[in-house]
């Protein structure tokens, strides 16, 4: 009860801060970041807090995850809710990045001698302070109480502001529905106790999914024990997608 009161008062404060022309203020209101790291207090009230981790050293770039995601979620051709990037660093330091032109054919060998090469799977980071939620003018981009950043398909007006705002390029405007579309962490699966399709499809366990609120969850243990990074931390988005063994070249 007291929690609810607190929340509602915070909403009122939000309202006050949003008084005409003072949009600025509302972005200053933040206070302590909720859900900054694994197992934060804000999520605990609501049960689960889903998180995601990628071990880039395990990724073999087979693209099974991307194919599974597309088939599971009806992702339109030419767009991706997840993808895998190949980084190739040459001896002189030049970096070239590519993704397969055809997901069904996967990565092909390329000319040139890379001294360092690796794959990096990318996915919506399900940020604790997601920019897409911040900029959505109608409240169609939202974070469910379990930490998953979702799109309200019945409410989205298709303005594309969230697509511009996402620093990770994981959102797109669906060419048929004209709504914003993005990774849902396979919300229809995880709410029924299954893993996301990409996690299940990964042959090497490079993609991991789990409950950050559960200290015994494999993901929580991994994040407690191993060193990780998030993508573009300077954006202040506090992603809940953690990368193990990430190279400095990866943006």
């Amino acid at each position, binding site marked *: 009860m007291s929690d609810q009161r607190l929340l509602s008062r915070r909403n009122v404060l*939000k309202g006050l801060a949003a008084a005409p022309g003072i949009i600025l203020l509302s972005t200053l209101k933040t206070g302590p970041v909720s859900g900054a790291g694994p197992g934060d207090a804000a999520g605990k009230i609501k049960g689960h807090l889903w998180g995601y981790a990628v071990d880039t050293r395990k990724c073999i770039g087979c693209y099974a995850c991307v194919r599974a995601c597309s088939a599971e979620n009806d992702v339109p051709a030419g767009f991706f809710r997840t993808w895998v990037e190949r980084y190739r660093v040459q001896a002189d330091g030049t970096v070239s990045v590519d993704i397969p032109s055809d997901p069904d054919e996967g990565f092909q060998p390329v000319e040139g001698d890379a001294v360092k090469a690796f794959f990096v799977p990318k996915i919506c980071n399900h940020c604790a302070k997601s920019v897409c939620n911040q900029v959505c*003018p109608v409240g169609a981009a939202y974070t469910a109480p379990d930490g998953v950043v979702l799109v309200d398909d019945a409410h989205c007006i*298709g303005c594309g502001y969230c697509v511009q705002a996402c620093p990770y390029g994981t959102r797109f405007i669906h060419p048929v529905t004209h709504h914003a579309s993005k990774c849902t962490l396979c919300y229809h699966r995880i709410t029924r106790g299954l893993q996301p399709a990409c996690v299940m499809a990964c042959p090497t366990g490079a993609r991991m999914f789990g409950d950050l609120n559960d200290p015994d969850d494999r993901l929580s243990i991994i994040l407690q024990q191993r060193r990780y990074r998030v993508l573009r931390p300077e954006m202040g988005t506090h992603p809940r997608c953690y990368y193990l063994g990430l190279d400095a070249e990866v943006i």
Partner: protein
Amino acid sequence: MNFVLPNEVNVTWTVMIVLYPYITGLVAGAFIMSSLYHVFGRLELKSISRFSLVSAFVFLLFAPLPLLIHLGEPLRSFNIMITPNFNSAMAGFGFIYSAYLLLVILEIWFSLRGEFIRCARGIGWKAGLCRIVVMFNLEETDAERRADGKITRFLAGMGIPLACLLHGYVGFLFGSLKANPWWSTPLMFVIFIFSAIVSGIAVLIFLYLIVAWINRWEIDRACVNSMARYLWGFMMVAVSLELLEILSIAYKQTEEWEILARLIETKLFLSYIVLQFLIFSLIPFLFLGIAVLFRLKTRIADGLIWLASSMLLIQVLLMRWNVVIGGQLLSKSMRGFTSYFPGLLEREGLVVAVVIFTLPFGILYLFNRIIPLFPSHPKLSEGDSSNS
């Protein structure tokens, strides 16, 4: 080397979103010009004060049109006011736009009530329309006229911050997007306001001179000279700010400059460096400078001012293009660029854009048929003051 994130191959914001800030810029600029007369007492601008206010109104009417065409779900557009998320810069649009539209309508109503009444006393469809507009009150007293003057001045004063807000919020909308280094600068807000004023003054000069030439009016010299001076001043500020923005990023040599430099050198070289700065900023700057500083034959001076205005109209359009499209050409991978040029006939294509942009001029012409926009000029014939 050129790596674009897979979802960025198609740009999300098309030429429609270029047009939208362009049109709101014209609104804000034209309104501020009319307020210069109404509020700040620049009496030499009287000749264009009515014209500028009505121009602001018609452009304002069409400002949301490109947005509606761009929206994936235009029928849901009112969600922006039904469930606004005030953390979003965009959520302000519905309210700021509505408030501003209301204000401009009221200001037109109060400042042109006498004209409407005069028209309503006549016969024909125009009179019928005007009778509805003045709400069937065909009497006008001096006391009411005084009240109208006061209300107009009050509204014109209120309108300046609202005009800045309406357009500044567009700049804020881009400038606050941290994900895009080409947009993310606090200067964006200011640049948008100043370029809006430039485009507003430019479109007024552009239209006024054309209309005057077509109708063989005697041009109000004081008015044109004053506007040219304002235009010169505001364009200097606007272009300086645009240059300062890029110079400060370039000088700081931060990580983002590596990719922004490539963007400017390759994808935006023509539209940004050559067109926006070298041709459409430098030449108008020189033309206006010559017209303002030197005594020239009026025909030459007017020609220079008109040319400069037309070029500045294009300059501001280029600036919008380079901001809106340029920012999207840059991939968030920071390793490559995508490409965009609007198609001719698609929904968000060039034809639709041109149609949207010409519609306000048509409405302006119709409005002029009812209430003359340039009252103080000698009329060629009764009832039809111009062929603008």
